[in-house]
Every structure is written in C-alpha cells, then in structure tokens.
C-alpha cells in the first residue's frame, strides 16, 4: 500500500489525476490505441473463426505493426492512467481481470499465428483464434466496467 501511495504521489500520478485535460488526453490516446490494436485483432480472429470473410489470416501480419503501435500507445497511456489512481485500480476486480484477459489473449494470438504458419487453417488454429477473440472482448467489457466499479 505504501508503494501504491508513493506511485500515486509521483509527479506523473499527481499531474494525470489533477489536471483534467491530461487525464482526458490519456483517455483519448487509450481509445485510439484500442481502435488500432483491438481493431486488427478483431478482424484477424473473426476471420479465423469464420464470423467474417475477408483477408486470409496470415496476410493480417501486414497490419500487425499498426496493431503493435496501438498497443504501445495503450501501454503508455494505460500506465499513466494507472499511476494516477494506483491505490484504487490495483484492487478493482475488473481491472485485474482486464489485464489477465489481455495477457492470456496475447498468448493465444501468438499461438494462433504460429499454428497457422505451421499447420494452416486446422481446428486448433481456429480454436486459438476463438479464444483470442473471447479474451479481448472480455478485456473491452472489463475495461469499460472499470468506470462503474
């Protein structure tokens, strides 16, 4: 708890929390980053499970630099947002769930792409795609619910 309080009282924590515009700008960046990272993950995994047709799964790799850019924007803006309310967010169930789902979803995404490269569009590849999709949809929901808990 002392550590969390110290985090909140760093100059970044104080600034993001107390300057209304800094907080709003971080939220805007977080939305933009989400649009790029989640957008690409979404069309890739929805293609994998067959919800949509479109680009072959492996060809989505050309969009991954854009998705990673979005992810890094969200990592940075996310850290800024976390630092500003560390004592609160650390104990929010939905926040812990969100981070876990993002991490697990990321691992499944990697497994999905590896399996597509090795074995093509077989059942296991699609299963990993579906699990990634489920995890990241869960991450949107739990992330949004942070505002309500």
């Amino acid at each position, binding site marked *: 708890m002392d550590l969390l309080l110290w985090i909140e009282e760093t100059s970044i924590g104080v600034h993001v929390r107390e300057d209304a515009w800094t907080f709003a700008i971080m939220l805007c960046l977080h939305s933009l980053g989400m*649009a*790029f990272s989640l*957008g690409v993950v979404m069309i890739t995994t*929805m293609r994998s499970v067959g919800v949509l047709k*479109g*680009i072959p799964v492996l*060809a989505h790799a050309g969009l991954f630099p854009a998705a990673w850019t979005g992810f890094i924007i969200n990592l940075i803006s996310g850290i800024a947002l976390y630092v500003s309310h560390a004592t609160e967010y650390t104990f929010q169930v939905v926040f812990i769930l969100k981070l876990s789902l993002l991490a697990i979803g990321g691992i499944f995404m990697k497994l999905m792409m590896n399996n597509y490269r090795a074995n093509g569009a077989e059942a296991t590849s699609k299963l990993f795609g579906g699990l990634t999709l489920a995890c990241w*949809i869960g991450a949107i929901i739990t992330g949004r619910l942070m505002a309500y808990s």
Partner: protein
Amino acid sequence: MNQDTLAWFSDTWLGVFMRDTYWAWPFMENFHFFGLSVLFGGLVAIDLRVVGIAPSVPMKAALSLIPYVMVGFAINLITGIFFFAGDPFRYFYNIAFQWKMALIVLAGINALWFWFGEHAKLSKLADGEQADFPAKVIATLSLAIWMGVIILGRLIPYLE
C-alpha cells in the same frame, strides 16, 4: 431540432430504457466499443493497404471487408441512438458530440467518393501494386476523420 423533439426522443421507450435500467448504459457502451473495433479494424486493413503501408495485404480481400465495416457502423449507429435518447438534452448541446456528428457526415461523403471514384479501379489492382494518388488521399482522410470521431466521442463528458 427544437425542445419538443428532444423531449419526444427522451420519452421514447429507448430513452426510458436507458435511464431506468441500471445495466443499459454499460451494456450499450460495450456494444459501441465492439462496433468501433470492427468498423475501425476493417478500415485499418483497407486504408493501410490503399495508402501503401501494408502492401502485403491483398487488395480485393481488403475491399471485401467493406460490408463488415458497415455492420460495425450500424451497431454504433443503433447503440448511439440509444445513448442519445437516454440523454438528448445533454448530447444535442454538447460541442464534442456536434463535431463528432459533423465528422461522421464528412466520413460518409469521403466513403461515397471512395465507392464511386475508386472502388472499381482498386478492385483490379494486382497484389502489391500501388493505388493511385486520389485513392491514397481518400484512405488517409478516412483514417484521420475516424480517429477524430473516436477522440471527440471520448471527449463528450469533458466538453460540457
């Protein structure tokens, strides 16, 4: 839109549902984010291919995402109408909301330009081949406008 129209919106079952059901707002917000991801994900694929940042994406396959982009938009239009009905007096006079709507209209015009001016040409493009300059302008505008829409949407609670 006058006060009566806004009041009428507010009294529809949509508005009543949004205000009286405790899970309605977060429920619709989650769909709004889901729709946004599908809409923007599809646009990223199409626009980055057209601009030339993602040349390895097959053009025809990217263009086949257009219907899904529309589905994403439809989800957000519907959920957006629910939000509006839930609190019409707040949204209608909110400067971020007004600019957001203006940008969506602009995005629509840009999409029409794309559809009627470039779509046929782009469909014939070979894999890896570059799109022409007007198509690249439209694709850049598309990404920029939708990024603006996302930013303004997020700013609605901060600009009132």
